[in-house]
């Protein structure tokens, strides 16, 4: 499994200063079978083999492979969730459930978890329209062989009625440290029409707390809109957020903001000299260093590298990097070791 994804770690090639990644999802079900929550074991297997036939033959995919959930250990499932930045949990996926990936490292399909099919693309950068077109082409190709549940009134029928209609959900992962630490994000939410849009954390949770200053922008409406409307709504808010963040960073750079310089220096100290780092502490410190790189206050590392370290210190990627299971007690130590090694040549200019 890892070969297809190891060679295509999405974040390793991302030099974007603000947009970390985007995910585009289509929720689909088959009309002839009960939805997964009511699907008996033998029919679950039938659905799985139906999709196996359709997806593995899909000419728009690059060497697609099937991963049987029953044969994957929890670390592998977690690796998939981390790689594709999925906000849905499928840790308990087992017999009759599975996944498809391909050599692009961007394509992901989840079978029989909540819906019969969750078709997904994860991309780095902001090409939502192209990615949507690609995803819909893959779906349309599949639709030549299977019938998706559909009604004139509710559109494509999802297990969760809130996701019927287009069944299309976009998540854009933005890094907004300047807005968050200056309080501008709250002002932005108050002053902008956020109808149909929600801001969550890196896990998609709407808690108002953003670990690593990562904000996910996603659409809450899927019915009564076209996919183009959804892209336009999400892209509208994303563009405004990026422009605001860019503006705030410009101010920090020009004003040589002392508070932010202090934060960057402290984050540098933590990452360079800590022996143990928990996920949240690592994320928050790396966020500030990533901002420092963009402001020109941190040298000898580029955005691509810091983006890679930022997302690859998560547990399953760390386990994969070290090539063996890491005890829970050793995890924070290994994380500190990994980050220290990756940031070895980094220096401060402030």
């Amino acid at each position, binding site marked *: 499994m890892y070969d297809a994804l190891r060679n295509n770690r999405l974040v390793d090639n991302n030099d974007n200063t603000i947009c970390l990644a985007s995910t585009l999802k289509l929720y689909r079900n088959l009309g002839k079978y009960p939805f997964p929550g009511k699907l008996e074991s033998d029919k679950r297997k039938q659905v799985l083999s139906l999709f196996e036939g359709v997806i593995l033959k899909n000419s728009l995919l690059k060497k697609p492979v099937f991963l049987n959930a029953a044969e994957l250990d929890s670390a592998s499932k977690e690796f998939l969730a981390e790689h594709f930045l999925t906000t849905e949990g499928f840790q308990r996926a087992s017999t009759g459930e599975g996944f498809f990936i391909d050599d692009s490292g961007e394509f992901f399909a989840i079978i029989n978890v909540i819906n019969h099919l969750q078709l997904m693309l994860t991309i780095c950068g902001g090409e939502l329209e192209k990615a949507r077109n690609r995803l819909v082409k893959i779906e349309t190709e599949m639709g030549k062989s299977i019938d998706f549940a559909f009604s004139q009134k*509710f559109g494509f029928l999802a297990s969760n009625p809130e996701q019927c209609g*287009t069944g299309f959900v976009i998540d854009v992962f933005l890094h907004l440290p300047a807005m968050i630490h200056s309080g501008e994000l709250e002002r932005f939410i108050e002053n902008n029409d956020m109808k149909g849009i929600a801001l969550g954390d890196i896990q998609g949770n709407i808690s108002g707390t953003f670990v690593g200053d990562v904000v996910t922008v996603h659409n809450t409406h899927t019915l009564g809109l076209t996919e183009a409307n959804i892209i336009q709504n999400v892209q509208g808010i994303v563009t405004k957020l990026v422009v605001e963040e860019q503006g705030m960073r410009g101010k920090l750079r020009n004003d040589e903001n002392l508070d932010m310089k202090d934060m960057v220096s402290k984050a540098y100290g933590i990452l360079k000299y800590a022996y143990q780092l928990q996920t949240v502490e690592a994320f928050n410190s790396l966020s500030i260093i990533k901002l420092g790189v963009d402001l020109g206050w941190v040298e000898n590392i580029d955005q691509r590298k810091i983006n890679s370290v930022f997302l690859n210190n998560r547990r399953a990627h760390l386990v994969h990097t070290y090539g063996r299971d890491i005890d829970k007690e050793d995890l924070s130590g290994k994380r500190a070791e990994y980050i220290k090694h990756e940031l070895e040549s980094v220096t401060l200019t402030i």
Partner: protein
Amino acid sequence: MLYGSGMEADKPLECSACKKPITIFYTEVVGDTKTCLGMCSDCPILKHKLYGYDSEEPAEGLSSTEDTTLCCGVCGTSIEDVLMGHPLGCAECYTIFDDVITKGVEVDNHAPKRVDISTKNVSTHIGRAPGEMVEVSPSLRLGILSETLKETLSREDYEQAAWIRDQIKKIEGGKSNV
């Protein structure tokens, strides 16, 4: 024609939809065809027949704590499951629980107000149907950026405006940061 409970002793004792005790018999005559249904007083089918979808009455089950047990005949999903936000069990659930889902979407504000989904038989899905392929153009982003550029220039933030112009050029050249 509507009869009160107990008026016809030989009628079935359970609601034909939800297995609750029958309190109402509903007889409908259309042309030469006569149909007779036994229903409980909470029956959403009765509400549909009496008021249709244009009724000002709140959707069954959404407004109260009334104990209803309407179930999907295909998968067994109950109206309580739907009201509690559990996943639907099959495609047929969308027909059986049509009004509850419609009202739920409205109440939860998941559909924009400009889309009227309260009227019966109005197609509320306005996107693609299966098999349709409609390309989306990247010009969507250009429109959004142009709008943002105007806004930025109106507040005389020329540094931001220059950055946005760069992004527009990058999109036109095929590479962008937004």
